[in-house]
């Protein structure tokens, strides 16, 4: 029989405000096995843990029930406290009477009754708990960063600086990401590539960093400390070792009609191309869909002009298999598609553009050489209208429910730059709210309004109508003066919402990392573990976790790196001891458990068993503790009931069911 101590936390008034904790303590004393019950204001505090320590020692407790917040919050705290007092940490169960009780119920009587039942279920479970010992697993001292934007670059640099090798996998031909497409950055108006390219160069030159561009993660197996990842290195058709990056092939390539992804389709590029001049690595890729040689078999000009002999039409996709201890996801974002926002005439008029397209237009390396001009007729626009929140903060399902966070600031930046360079161009911004929380952000926005005379109108735009004279008629509302506004504009810029990059869901599935309905990866704790995924060994960097600007991305990238370094610095990890095991007397070796095991943790052995005095050799299932992750799929599949999960055994769950239904 266990000797159980029940500890009920008030959590200030968080629990005690709606749950009669004294009543819970009183009821606990009647439960089987309970020899000690007490309550305290903050069980997780030093003093609270001291109470637990004392009770374990004095009452010789063999099991603990802590009625407190979610086990996802403080299970580890109380397990460590128990271990310090000499109790096996797996003899601790948490009754979640805060998140699942006091916080959601108003009625004291109801909440107390529920808290008592939850306590009972936990006591019933502890009664059947057995001490467990975690195993150990090794840590591969190498990190993988998925995504080569500023988030991935910064994470890789920080990890490598700590002395661990890092691989970056980037799906496009060059690292740099979204930031490389930007012209200037707020709130300092730094030139984006001037601050990014040195970092790209640093990553490229770092002895511990290996970059796989034009590559994608194909599969992920394993678990924290020991992931096995297959990386598909897509055929570049150019030998990376031979290419000198002279650029002659791109110049001579006769197929020049492909739309440039880097310039958001506003200009064309050759079939053999580097996305932009400062690309890292400076090695072109042949777009096989556009290349004449691949389409017709005739051409081969690039091969003829290449003095280094680097062109290799026969190159094939290569699969690289590598082991990693930690994986950082830095897959970034893209703008939403605007096909559901017909009212803004984006698909009808060339002069309705997104902010990222404007970014390219204003960039000296962009499609217009940095001159602000209308894409339809090349004329300089005299009247520009910016429309904010296109698809952000959207109440219906056309857009996104969240605020994209960066648009208010980049629009202020665009407006300011335009007014600065073209003082005779009027700029009007239609907004719902202007959100400028951030260091020097509001000052920046005020400068746009006060010093640069940007006209901000609170209100949304209902429709943009292309006119026969080439102008755009903008119908909007001014909510402050409550009047309709009709404005003729030469150019309309849409601050389209941002969303996680396409394909992030596939990556999340491979990593078994949680993802939310908006395709942002979920963090382990919204406030306290913002750069970790709930899946151990997976870290989050940049916009894949939520909208953020460059400074925030860089700080999160650093934080993710530190977490990864903390993991890589360990020699051994303790494994979860809640693994499956089979009862050799019940197992009949039918193989069904091995069929459902996602980790290949179950094998079969011929083993001599002693079944009630009869000694015979039987084929029985054996679980490899190091591989088993404790999902329990096998326990339900097992027809003879031989498989059971330690820590969540059949008897324990049934006891909980019984306690709840009592």
């Amino acid at each position, binding site marked *: 029989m266990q000797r159980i101590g029940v500890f009920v936390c008030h959590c200030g008034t968080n629990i005690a405000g709606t749950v009669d904790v004294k009543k819970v303590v009183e009821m606990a004393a009647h439960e089987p096995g309970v020899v000690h019950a007490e309550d305290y204001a903050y069980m997780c505090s030093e003093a609270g843990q001291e109470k637990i320590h004392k009770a374990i020692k004095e009452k010789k407790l063999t099991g603990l029930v802590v009625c407190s917040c979610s086990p996802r919050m403080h299970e580890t705290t109380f397990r460590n406290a128990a271990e310090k007092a000499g109790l096996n940490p797996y003899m601790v169960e948490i009754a979640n009477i805060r998140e*699942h009780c006091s916080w*959601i119920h108003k009625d004291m009587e109801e909440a107390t009754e529920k808290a008592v039942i939850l306590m009972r279920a936990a006591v019933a479970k502890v009664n059947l708990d057995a001490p467990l010992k975690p195993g150990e697993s090794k840590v591969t001292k190498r990190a993988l960063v998925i995504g080569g934007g500023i988030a991935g670059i910064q994470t890789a640099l920080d990890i490598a600086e700590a002395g661990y090798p890092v691989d970056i996998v980037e799906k496009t031909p060059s690292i740099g990401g979204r930031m490389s497409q930007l012209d200037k950055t707020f709130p300092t108006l730094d030139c984006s590539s001037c601050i990014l390219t040195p970092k790209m160069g640093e990553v490229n030159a770092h002895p511990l960093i290996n970059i796989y561009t034009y590559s994608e993660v194909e599969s992920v197996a394993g678990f924290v400390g020991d992931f096995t990842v297959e990386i598909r290195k897509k055929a570049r058709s150019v030998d990376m070792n031979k290419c000198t990056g002279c650029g002659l092939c791109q110049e001579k390539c006769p197929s020049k009609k492909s739309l440039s992804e880097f310039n958001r389709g506003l200009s064309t590029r050759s079939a053999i191309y580097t996305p932009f001049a400062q690309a890292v690595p400076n090695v072109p890729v042949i777009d096989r869909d556009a290349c004449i040689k691949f389409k017709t078999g005739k051409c081969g000009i690039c091969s003829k002009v290449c003095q280094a002999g680097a062109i290799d039409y026969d190159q094939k996709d290569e699969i690289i298999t590598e082991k990693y201890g930690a994986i950082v996801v830095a897959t970034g974002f893209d703008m939403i598609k605007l096909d559901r926002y017909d009212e803004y005439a984006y698909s009808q008029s060339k002069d309705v553009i997104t902010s990222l397209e404007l970014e390219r237009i204003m960039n000296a390396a962009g499609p217009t050489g940095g001159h602000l001009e209308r894409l339809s007729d090349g004329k300089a626009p005299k009247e520009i209208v910016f429309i904010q929140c296109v698809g952000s903060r959207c109440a219906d399902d056309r857009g996104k429910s969240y605020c994209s966070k960066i648009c208010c600031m980049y629009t202020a930046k665009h407006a300011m730059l335009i007014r600065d360079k073209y003082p005779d161009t009027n700029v009007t911004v239609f907004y719902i709210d202007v959100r400028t929380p951030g260091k020097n952000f509001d000052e920046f926005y005020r400068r746009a309004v006060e010093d640069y005379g940007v006209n901000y109108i609170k209100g949304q735009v209902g429709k943009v109508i292309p006119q026969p004279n080439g102008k755009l008629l903008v119908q909007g509302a001014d909510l402050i003066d409550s009047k309709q506004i009709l404005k003729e504009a030469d150019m309309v810029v849409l601050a389209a919402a941002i969303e996680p990059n396409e394909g992030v869901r596939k990556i999340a599935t491979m990593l078994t990392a949680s993802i939310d309905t908006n395709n942002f990866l979920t963090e382990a704790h919204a406030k306290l573990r913002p750069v970790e995924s709930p899946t151990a060994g997976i870290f989050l960097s940049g916009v894949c976790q939520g909208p953020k600007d460059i400074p925030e991305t860089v700080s999160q990238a650093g934080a993710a790196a530190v977490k990864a370094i903390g993991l890589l610095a360990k020699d051994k990890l303790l494994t979860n001891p809640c693994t499956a095991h089979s009862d050799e007397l019940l197992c009949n070796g039918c193989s069904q458990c091995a069929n459902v095991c996602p980790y290949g943790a179950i094998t079969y052995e011929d083993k001599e068993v002693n079944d009630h005095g009869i000694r015979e050799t039987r084929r029985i299932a054996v679980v490899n503790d190091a591989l088993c992750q404790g999902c329990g799929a096998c326990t339900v599949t097992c027809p003879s009931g031989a498989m059971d999960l330690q820590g969540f055994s059949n008897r324990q769950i049934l006891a909980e*069911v019984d306690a709840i239904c009592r």
Partner: protein
Amino acid sequence: MSIEKNEEFRPKIVAFCCNWCSYAGADLAGSSRMSYSADVKIIRVPCSCRVNPMFILRAFERGADGVIMCGCHPGDCHYTSGNFYARRRMTLLFSMLDYIGVENGRTRVEWVSAAEGAKFSQTMHEFVDKITSLGKNVRLEDLRCRN
């Protein structure tokens, strides 16, 4: 003719929640103060695939009025494929429950992610309403235990 509503009826509802998505979703509902009925009691399991049909039958045997199982969305399972097994098992089990005297509406499977606190609360509201409308369940009996 109308059936008098029994105001006193408080259903007993057992909710099995997987540790990675739905339990976290329930935590989020809690920390966001999205209330639902106190009649719902949650049992944490590592994965929805840990839920043995036996657990659900046992709940009905012990007087539960409804059992709901929540897991990660299909494709998002922390253990890659656990919820697919759970989905099949529950489909099979639920198809037979009517035969043994448990109405269809007394069981439900719902996929709730860690970010869907509101969905968790909403689901529990709906489920409690459903069970309340069905009224008290007839306890399952294990005939082997009869004399």
